[in-house]
């Protein structure tokens, strides 16, 4: 069983690369060349590794976010929106509150977590109160969140000088300290790893984690065992949303240093694939985050430095995701 857990994701990745190679060959390029430049783009230099790890940071948060809800039997497709709301609140705290760095950064992180958590909890409440499917409500709330942020950066929090719709830059005291000088790598990756550790401890060692996974297996059994299902659902959406919010906070505090329209380029949806490929386990999510981080960053490199048509790169990224989903179909049937 344990072997299967490892073999399946590896198999999906290999299959994706294989089919991807065929697509590249059909276009008339050498697949090995393309894969090599992708690898070099993702890990070939100090700044490439740093860039990959920066993307990995975001992937870890969104992956944990999806995984947390999934383990409680919930499908949170609203990570994108939670990311935006978290980014917004943490940006507000980072721009308008003046504090020394050791207090300011944690405050901004809490604000980011809260932003996402509120957004997630609303979906949880709607499910409990009106039996509204969280799959639908979270998707719809993505739009509200992204457009709300667009409204904010076009109006109330738009920077004073300059004409581009974005907020003021965050205060220096709120910026994540850089780990490797001259690169974008910040302590964000460490915070993400801490989150992974807490995630593992929660699901493996605590009573709450156990009860929540019972709810995830079967709500009826959980209710029969006296577990407060509704409270579990709302807690799960709260934390799942909060993790999504942290992804936004990490982007604002560690990468962009401001909030603007287009803070995320679909990261929230990557979280689904990251978590599924990682089998929702902490370690698995961390490893698949690294893969998706490399895909994202190395993908940029392919687009910049080879003559491969843009569409092929999208196909490549989609194939990896597709084969992960195919794998899921199989696992669902086995149960």
């Amino acid at each position, binding site marked *: 069983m344990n072997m299967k857990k490892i073999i399946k994701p590896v198999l999906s990745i290999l299959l994706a690369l294989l089919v991807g190679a065929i697509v590249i060959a059909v276009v008339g390029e050498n697949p090995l060349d393309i894969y090599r430049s992708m690898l070099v783009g993702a890990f070939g*230099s100090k*700044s*490439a590794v740093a*860039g990959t790890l*920066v993307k990995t940071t975001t992937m870890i948060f969104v992956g944990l976010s999806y995984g947390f809800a999934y383990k409680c039997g919930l*499908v949170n*497709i609203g990570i*994108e929106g939670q990311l935006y709301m978290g980014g917004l609140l943490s940006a507000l705290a980072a721009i308008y509150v003046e504090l020394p760095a050791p207090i300011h950064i944690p405050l901004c992180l809490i604000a980011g977590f809260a932003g996402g958590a509120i957004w997630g909890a609303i979906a949880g409440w709607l499910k409990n109160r009106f039996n509204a499917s969280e*799959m639908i409500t979270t*998707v719809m709330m993505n739009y509200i969140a992204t457009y709300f942020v667009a409204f904010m950066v076009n109006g109330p929090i738009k920077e004073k000088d300059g*004409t*581009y719709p*974005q907020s003021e830059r965050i205060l220096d005291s709120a910026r994540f300290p850089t780990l490797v000088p*001259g*690169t*974008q790598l910040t302590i964000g990756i460490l915070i993400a790893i801490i989150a992974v550790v807490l995630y593992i401890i929660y699901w493996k060692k605590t009573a709450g984690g156990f009860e929540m996974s019972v709810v995830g297996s079967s709500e009826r059994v959980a209710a029969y065992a006296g577990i407060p299902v509704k409270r579990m659902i709302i807690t799960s959406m709260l934390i799942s949303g909060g993790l999504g919010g942290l992804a936004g906070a990490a*982007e604002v505090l560690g*990468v*962009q*240093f*401001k909030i*603007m*329209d*287009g*803070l*995320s*380029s*679909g*990261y*929230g*949806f*990557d979280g*689904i*694939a990251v978590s*599924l490929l990682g089998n929702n386990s902490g370690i698995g999510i961390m490893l698949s985050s690294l893969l998706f981080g490399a895909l*994202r*960053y190395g*993908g*940029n*490199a*392919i*687009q*910049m*430095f*080879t*003559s*491969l*048509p*843009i569409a092929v*790169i*999208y196909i490549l*990224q*989609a194939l990896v*995701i*597709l084969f992960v*989903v195919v794998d*899921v*179909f199989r696992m*669902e049937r086995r*149960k």
Partner: protein
Amino acid sequence: MKKKTLIALIMTLALAGSCIGCGSGGSSSASDSGDSGSSSASASDIKVALVLPGSANDKGWNQEAYDGLQEIKENGYETAYSENVEASDYETIFRGYADQGYNVVFGHGTEFEDAAESVAPDYPDTMFCITSSDISQEPNVCSLQNLNNEQGFIAGVVAALATKSGTVAAIGGMEIPSIQSYIMGFEQGVDYVDNGTTALTAYTGDFSDATKVMEQAKAFIDQGADIISQDADEAGLGLFEAVKDAPEGVYAIGSVTDQYEECPGRVLTSATNNIGEAMAVAVDQYASGDLTAQCYKYGIAEGVIGLADYHDCSDVLTDEQKDFINETMDKIASGEITVESAQQ
């Protein structure tokens, strides 16, 4: 079981959505050799990259820069570009090009200012050049600003000479400095001709809503304007819709590129603004070691701002009037006429 299948299906849809997400975050490339590692000993030792916020074939802002890059390529430089780059990837892409030893990296638009300023100190050997901006940062961030005020000025001169009703108009998009400069220039141009012509101006507030520009143009026509100009990017196309239905004798003046095709027979001329040309000039300056950290302003003198052909509206203006327009442009180029601007 059924529910599980449903869940899986919905997740597939969501993932498909995520692929679209990836898609819009992407970029593409046109590398000369396809192998960035090889150092050819040809004239193309200087590598130029262009980062676009939109599609390279958008028939507007982005395409203008892309065409400029093609010109740079024809001049013998090695080029690459990334299109549809999302705000979250600006810095990443800048760093990527700089890591690969690109000498000049263009960020096409004001939105790239912050990214250039924060990336530049790490890459002293790369010149970051932002278009439509006035920033500079020692030693390696410069900007290119086209003198829209001169562009507006010529349009104003042409309009004032061509009008029969004594009323002309100009419509701007978003009320930002670059567009304000165009409108200010237009008013100054009309005043310069000094024949009692009234200039009406308005802003519609965005660059995408062509209907608003059309409505505004119709309102101006109702007020007696017979020559109308615009500077509103895509939205400006609404002007030509309005002119199509207007009574005889009403003409449009296009902007940025020669917009004659938008409404043949009713487009007097266009006040052109060739950002691509400005980019090519900047790269040549880099090659000769003259590109430094400052804001470069390009106007009529550099051949970046100009006037398009009159096509079949040639008889609207007399030859003396055309000569007057050419003389005025020469005077602006030589500095004899200074045009006020909303930009620093």
